[in-house]
């Protein structure tokens, strides 16, 4: 009996429980209202029949499902244990590694993943495996169904006029709501824990000081066994990230985004605004992989030709400039919408005050609106930087892998995210410092973006409060 059919069966039982408990409650309700005196019209059922139905259905479904979930986790161990006690398992090697390999091969065949196993010892175990699996899954199914029936019966006996089914059901609903909200915390904890855990393992190989302040990054040589002492200096990566995400991209995004917002809020007619704003938003909706492809295929070669024309040495076709430029364009709508919000929240009185002095619109914008909106704009820029330095695909596709410390925008630099992807793609051995380094980089990235966001949100919030 497979999991899906049991699942469906239990849900079906839940439906039956819902219908029958509701029917019973309705019968009770009509009986009590007939029995009661006409003047006494107050319904004698505490909860609506539907709630009794839900109560019963929950009792049928929840315990059974819970058991199924636990069983699904426990069962493989039980099955393996039983297989190991089979006479056919007596010939297995004692070495846990090859033993595990044979067992997993047998399991694969038994579950229909493969036609036949390569190892004859595994083939011998297939039948015992199947038998054990049949036994335990059947047992699990029977227990689950029994739980469902028991739960249903218990709930059914509790359908009485004065039973507070609604309160019970609502408590379960509230529990579900709370659990859903806690997922956010669990995810955050999961991120922090996994990054920290793997980073700590990395730092058992590499001195954190060398990692944060070293200037030589060559994880390949470390992987080849040239010693990992000085191969993990991440400063060139940090510089590349800042150079592309916080400098070049912002040089593009801040003026264009800010001026776009100014034009849209102060000059554009409502009709033009209705067209132009969505166009900017489309820029934000283009997937980053598309930007990356565009940067690598179209922008980067042009940049290199341009650099060669200028006679700049070391011009790379994976230049920081190409990646930063395209990233800046991607960030424009972000800066523009933050600036738009900030400018819009400067009180109209401020604008009127300046115009009434005989200032032109541009004087009003430059001397009153933008300075007044500055904290909001700065907050928005910080958020934009945090987004830019965490951006991955554009730099993976358009920036290079060479960890250079250079100020030349036409040269190739590499970034934190590029290196994370680089370190973690392909087959991974999980204990090598090379793969663990990706998590340390991830931790740095996480902490920096988190700080940027906290500071930015605080700046923006304080700014909003100033005008409320």
């Amino acid at each position, binding site marked *: 009996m497979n999991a899906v059919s049991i699942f469906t069966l239990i849900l079906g039982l839940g439906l039956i429980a819902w219908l029958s408990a509701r029917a019973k409650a309705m019968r009770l309700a009509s009986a009590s209202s007939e029995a009661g005196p006409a003047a006494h019209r107050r319904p004698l059922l505490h909860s609506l029949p539907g709630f009794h139905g839900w109560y019963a259905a929950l009792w049928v479904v929840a315990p059974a499902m819970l058991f199924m979930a636990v069983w699904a986790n426990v069962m493989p161990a039980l099955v393996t244990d039983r297989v190991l006690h089979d006479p056919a398992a007596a010939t297995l090697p004692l070495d846990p590694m090859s033993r595990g390999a044979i067992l997993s091969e047998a399991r694969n065949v038994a579950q229909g993943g493969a036609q036949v196993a390569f190892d004859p010892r595994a083939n011998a175990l297939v039948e015992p495996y199947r038998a054990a699996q049949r036994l335990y899954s059947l047992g699990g199914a029977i227990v689950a169904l029994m739980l469902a029936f028991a739960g249903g019966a218990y709930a059914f006996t509790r359908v009485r006029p004065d039973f507070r089914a609604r309160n019970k059901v609502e408590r379960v609903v509230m529990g579900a709501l*709370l*659990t859903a909200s806690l997922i956010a915390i669990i*995810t955050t904890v999961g991120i922090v824990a996994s990054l920290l855990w793997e980073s700590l393992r990395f730092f058992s190989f590499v001195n954190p000081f060398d990692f944060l302040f070293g200037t030589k990054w060559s994880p390949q040589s470390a992987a080849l066994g040239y010693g990992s002492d000085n191969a993990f200096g991440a400063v060139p990566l940090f510089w590349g990230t800042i150079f592309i995400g916080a400098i070049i991209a912002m040089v593009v995004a801040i003026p264009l985004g800010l001026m*776009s917002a100014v034009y849209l809020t102060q000059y554009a007619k409502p009709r033009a605004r209705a067209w132009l704003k969505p166009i900017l938003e489309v820029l934000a909706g283009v997937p980053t992989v*598309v930007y990356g492809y565009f940067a690598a295929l179209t922008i980067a070669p042009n940049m290199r030709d341009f650099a060669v024309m200028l006679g700049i040495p070391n011009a790379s076709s994976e230049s920081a400039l190409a990646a930063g430029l395209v990233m800046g364009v991607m960030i424009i709508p972000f800066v523009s919408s933050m600036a738009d919000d900030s400018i819009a929240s400067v009180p109209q009185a401020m604008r009127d005050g300046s115009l009434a002095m005989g200032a032109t619109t541009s004087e009003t*914008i430059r001397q009153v609106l933008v300075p007044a909106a500055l904290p909001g704009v700065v907050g928005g820029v910080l958020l934009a930087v945090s987004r830019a330095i965490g951006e991955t695909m554009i730099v993976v596709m358009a920036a290079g892998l060479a960890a250079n410390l250079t100020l030349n925008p036409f040269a190739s630099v590499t970034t934190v995210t590029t290196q994370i992807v680089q370190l973690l793609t392909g087959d991974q051995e999980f204990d090598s410092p090379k793969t663990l380094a990706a998590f340390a980089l991830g931790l740095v990235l996480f902490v920096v973006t988190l700080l940027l966001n906290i500071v930015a949100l605080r700046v923006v919030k304080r700014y909003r409060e100033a005008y409320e």
Partner: protein
Amino acid sequence: MTAPVPSPQPDRAPTDWKGAAMQKRIAARYSAERRFRTLGLTAIVMSAGFLAYLLISMLHDGLAGFTRTEIAMRIDFPTAPIVLDPASLRSANADAALASVNWQSLTDQAAQENLGKDSIWLAPSAWVAVRDAVKHDPSVLQKVATLNLPASAELDLAAKSDGSDEAEAAYARLDKTGLVHRAVNWSFLTASDGTDPTQVGIWGAFKGSLLTMTVTLLLSFPIGVLAALYLEEYAPRNRWTDMIEVSINNLAAVPSIIFGLLGLAVFLNTLHLPRSAALVGGLTLALMTMPVIVIAGRNAIKAVPPSIRDAALGIGASPVQVVFHHVLPLALPGIMTGTIIGMARALGETAPLLMIGMRAFIASPPGGITDPATVLPVQIFLWSDEVSKGFVEKTSAAIIVLLAFLLGMNSIAIYLRNKFERRW
């Protein structure tokens, strides 16, 4: 209280607004105004221009990817050295019967007969087309049939005047005989990844995207909506609630690649879920999408006026009834809009999926959520890395498909927003 009587001041001469100096100054101020305005317009035009440049270059490169060059070939099946009974192709063992034939040599031979030395310009995978033609219509086995077979990637490029000199010469030669023509490349929409650019398609990646998005939606939508309801309607003001709020706001801003690291460390290395599978991809993207839905959901719920809640509470509804009967239905369009936008973002996401191994070479569409799969954006990334020039147009064509889908999703979101937006 002292009266603010002004102390005697030396009078300033009245401003001469009509004077030449002042007129000049005003003119300068107005031209500064015009310059500033033009600057703003320029910024917008540049942004929009970049978008147009991107879209046009994708369309320019990509539209060709939906077509292919075909060479018409006469194949004399009755005399061909194959033993295949058309009846067996209609039976249950059709696949086994087809597999018994050496289609490649059959095709090569026909190519030699038809094209002579130009047979090298036939796609290496052309035999697949022959086999499929026979499978589709077994009656061709009894006659001399003319089949349109895909040309090689190089000839295909030559047809677009982008090939090597040799290939362009060959194309000109073949074109004169009237054997070559361009046709819609339907297999681009139905096939999966491959090594030959004439043969690849997006169906495999597309199905992977569908499966991944299904998992993402099924997880993030209920969880996101329930969390939004809790935070907006029931949550007590305490430290736990604050922590939940801070977590959600921060998760919405965490770089997507961090979610990939989480997926790798937790789902793959700790829980041992299958690598490269839509299940893990969906889980990872669900964690990323959930905060977006929570934030959109909270805004939509906040927009439902308190008077509705008061009215429902006033007639004796319980807090849960108030929310599920009144608040949620009214907030649903807003929540849907936010969900679609979040899903569109997830559909275009690449980086976290690279971390959990969804960059595998998937030559057949995944059968379920635990099979190895790839998704559309990752497919684009993989093709963009291919050296073969024929992949450029395929990459752009895949980008067009992806953008079309995102555009569709966003249009639905905008439509929903406009249709159901209620001003209270």
